[in-house]
């Protein structure tokens, strides 16, 4: 033997699959890109600005926190702050005042994540915490929807994009109602095809159910999300809405309308599947998904608001620890 090499002692295993958490987050972000582009296409520069501002807020807040508390690791590296910002933007109306969007991003990171101890420790989906804060603080602005257009209206500033903070906005902007609000308050059903392919008013991520569904299929095939959650949501929505239709087909919305309108697709595929705030067992994921679907239809039909995806997911997030506890799998050879 010539010279012995310098040997390194670590503990087995010595093989490791290569895909790490940042890579998983990046894949989720990539799959969101088509829907982001569609939002910009339909809502122009205002949508682009909302996306830019919310991500700036989430990433900036996390960075400031890292520096000011002298964290040893740079938690921006896991891309979760960026994803939170993008998802928050998708839940906001185009033409939403940018200062509010910024505030929402800060709250999403601080109250949604950092206060619990950072990624992995949060109970609620951070983007939805930000959105819930905005909903309760600015109920008017967040339900003021600009009409959609095609790319020719790209440079047109919609709604109240440049409203000065804490100044009451003017009332001269053109607005439109979302299909859900149309149904809730006027009893008008929008054609499902229009919702499916994006030509309807709504939040950035509400208008393109089709692209979000495609992203969901991609994420499922690549095993980045647990398909049981969206499947549970869809099943519960279809069953519950069909049941209501049997009772009174005129009064209650059809199941397909429920499925493709509002934030349901975005919520079911990108929000409810957030691994941190959803259950860790497969059985738990079914319960979680079914619960979200049931609550969505319940809130939309019998609640005061036209839309209920956000609260449905946040409520199910809150019971996730309990679901985890009662759905622990039977272990191999368990003796009862």
């Amino acid at each position, binding site marked *: *033997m010539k010279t012995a*090499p310098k040997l390194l002692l670590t503990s*087995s*295993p*010595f093989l*490791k699959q290569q895909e790490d958490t940042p890579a*998983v987050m990046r894949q989720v972000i990539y799959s969101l890109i088509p829907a982001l582009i569609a939002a910009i296409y339909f809502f122009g520069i205002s949508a682009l600005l909302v996306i830019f501002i919310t991500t700036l807020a989430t990433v900036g807040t996390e960075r400031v926190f890292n520096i000011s508390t002298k964290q040893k690791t740079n938690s921006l590296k896991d891309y979760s702050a960026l994803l939170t910002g993008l998802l928050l933007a998708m839940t906001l109306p185009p033409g939403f005042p940018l200062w509010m969007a910024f505030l929402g991003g800060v709250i999403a990171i601080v109250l949604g994540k950092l206060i619990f101890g950072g990624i992995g420790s949060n109970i609620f989906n951070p983007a939805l915490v930000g959105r819930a804060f905005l909903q309760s603080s600015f109920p008017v602005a967040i339900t003021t929807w600009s009409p959609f257009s095609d790319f020719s209206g790209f440079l047109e500033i919609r709604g109240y994009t440049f409203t000065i903070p804490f100044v009451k906005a003017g009332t001269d902007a053109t607005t439109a109602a979302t299909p859900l609000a149309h149904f809730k308050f006027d009893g008008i059903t929008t054609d499902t095809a229009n919702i499916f392919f994006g030509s309807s008013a709504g939040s950035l991520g509400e208008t393109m159910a089709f692209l979000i569904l495609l992203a969901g299929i991609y994420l499922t095939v690549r095993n980045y999300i647990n398909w049981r959650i969206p499947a549970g949501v869809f099943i519960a929505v279809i069953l519950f809405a069909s049941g209501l239709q049997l009772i009174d087909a005129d009064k209650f919305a059809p199941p397909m309308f429920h499925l493709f309108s509002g934030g349901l697709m975005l919520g079911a595929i990108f929000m409810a599947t957030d691994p941190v705030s959803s259950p860790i067992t497969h059985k738990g994921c079914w319960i979680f998904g079914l619960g979200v679907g049931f609550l969505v239809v319940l809130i939309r039909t019998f609640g005061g608001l036209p839309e209920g995806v956000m609260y449905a997911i946040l409520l199910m997030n809150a019971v996730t620890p309990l679901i985890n506890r009662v759905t622990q799998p*039977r272990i191999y*050879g368990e003796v009862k």
Partner: protein
Amino acid sequence: MLSFLSKTLKTFRHGIHPGDYKDLTRDLDIARLPFSDELTIPLSQHLGAPSRCLVKVGDKVNRGQIIAEPAGFVSIGQHAPVTGTVKAIEMKHHPSGKMVESVIITKDPFSPQTFYNEHAMEWENLSPDELISLIQHGGFVGLGGAAFPTHVKLKTPEGKNARFLIVNGVECEPYLTSDHRVMLEQSADIFLGIRILLKILGAEKFYIGIENNKPDAIALLTKNIPSDMNGEVVALQTKYPQGAEKMLIEAVLKREVPSGKLPIDVEVVVQNSGTIAGIGMMFRFGQPLIERVVTITGPGINNPANLLIPIGTPLTDVLDYCGGLKENTRQVLFGGPMMGAPQSDLDVPILKGTSGILCLTDEEVTIKEEFPCIRCLRCVDACPVYLNPSRLGALAKTRDYEGMLEYHVMDCVECGSCSYVCPSNIPLVQRFRVSKALLREKQAKAVKKSA
């Protein structure tokens, strides 16, 4: 999600697909390593009591002669792997990291090193207990790596019944090919060994479990099953850790060993294919376990090989014979990459339980930045005993060992699948091993106190 499409062969639930890396040595015939000048035979290279030494310094020993006898039932005999002289009996480095009392034998340079007492051993008229004693004194342990004394598993406890013998030819550890080569080159010994074990156990049927990445072994053994024997070769889907006893029983017979119980509780005994070939060889011409087939492999070794190595041969001689280590070699393991033991010092002997020597370079070192657990569920999907490694990892981090008991940490088989799949690079199995050791210590203390 789409994996159900490929589920045509038998297997167990969960587990991982780490890739097999076996091409380096898959097709290399077993070659005999020349005898080293000096061999170190630790008196403890098995689970159980160390063997009781029968020789003293200066004694002349013959190749295959017994040099240490079993010190109790869970203990085995040790034999001289070469003809030579006992040079010393002293504490020596052991691949487990401990210092162990060992017999050091210098080779007689003029001996032809033939086996000193060649004769076919009678077995058909012996009782099961007599055969078990022969296997115990023959020094047999599980050659798959755990080194549990073979005869202990053959002694069926009162009231239990061994109906099935499963021959473990799975070799699910990536890189290793020693069992594969033995199955290809010593099938006659394997079937003789099976005959003897079936007689000892009174079992009605045997199964040979082999993963489908070894199609030649599956075909050969299927063809060679003697017509008077009741048994079959079971082709299994390639998946880690199928070679773990519990997983293999689930894959072959769809039976689960109850938590805290043994395979015999579901009427099964599992033995490694290499061990069985060794037993067959002993009864064919009398040679006890004094050598074994080891795969020397990995990107860090110049000439990978499957070698027949006398027990006690210095690791450095083996590596030199294989052309030495490459410059950037950083880790040398005893065993495979999933459960192998890294060496801090190359001055250690080859043991009965050494199935492979894996040499890894800088490029394969897997130290990576740890991220927080995002509860992605991959470890839950991988764990072959259906634990919740994510939860256990969180409890281990806060040192809540009692909490870990509630989440069944003691059922962990330490296969490392959770650590393998974790995208956050959390050292899960590493923490579980430490936690289990601490819990066992605590339990032992509690037992002592109450006694």
